[in-house]
Structure formats: C-alpha cells, structure tokens
C-alpha cells in the first residue's frame, strides 16, 4: 500500500551531490563519536573511583537485597 512507502515531496527532494563531501554529515559523525567516547571514558573512570571508594568503606550487610 502506498502509505507504507517512504515518500518525499517533489518540491524539496534533491539528488545527492557526491562530488563534494557532505561536511555537515562528516562533522556530525565526528562530533557524535567524540562526544560518545568522552561520555564513555568519563563514566568508566567515575565507576572505577566509585568502586574503589565502596571497597574502602567496607562491606555493609545486605542493602535492599535483590
């Protein structure tokens, strides 16, 4: 059925230009990658510090089990 097909308005549809790099796409891709790595590394380091902090605290019995 036509409703399921992905349609674009003929007024704004354009043929992609492969002669030049899509700088917006490239920038977004690199920017997103950098942001994801930064977030991942930051969270990992925070988790390592939190784990070491809890180890130093000593084990308290059964906090809200399961």
């Amino acid at each position, binding site marked *: 059925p036509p409703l399921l097909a992905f349609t674009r308005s003929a007024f704004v549809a354009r043929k992609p230009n492969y002669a030049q790099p899509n700088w917006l796409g*490239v920038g977004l*891709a*690199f920017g997103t*990658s950098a942001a994801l790595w930064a977030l*991942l*590394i930051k969270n990992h380091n925070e988790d*390592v510090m939190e*784990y070491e902090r*809890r180890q130093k605290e000593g084990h308290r019995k059964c*906090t809200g089990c399961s």
Partner: protein
Amino acid sequence: MVFLPDESRSLPPPPLFNKGSAWLGFVGWMTALMDNTFNQRPVLRAGVHRQILLTTVGWFVGYYLTKRMEYIYAKTDRELLEYVKRHPEDFKVAGT
C-alpha cells in the same frame, strides 16, 4: 526497570576493552563496511567518519551491555549462594 541499579557500582567495572564492547564495536565497523559495499563505494577508504561513528556506537552499547550482564551474573550468584547458606541440610557434602 533500571538498566544498571546503584548496587551494580559495587562491582568492579569491566575494562573499556571488553568482549561486549570489542565485539559490538567490530559489528558496527562491519556494518559501515557493508554499507560501503552495498552502495558500491571503496570498502575501506570510503566514509571513514561513518566507520568511526558506527564503531563508537557499537563500543558504547557493548560496554553497557557487558556491565549489565556482569551485574546479572553477580546477582544470580549472590542469590544462589544465599539459598545454599540457608538450606545447609540440602547441600551436605557426600558421605557426611
């Protein structure tokens, strides 16, 4: 349903390079290379930004999935060992 409950932070965090992150990062990279193949682009040299992005997304998702997996295993182990401790009569060593 929380993805990573607070008590999961009491576990040692998995290294950044772990089986989940490495594998899904690889899968992401392969997806980018396959996309190049399907669009008849040079497989390795085209769309490096896409390759990096998809590898990163895979790595990111893989890291958190591994973290959750280790938490679930640790939780199951804890519950199992608690049960064993509470029912020693069912877990006598053979012969005693």
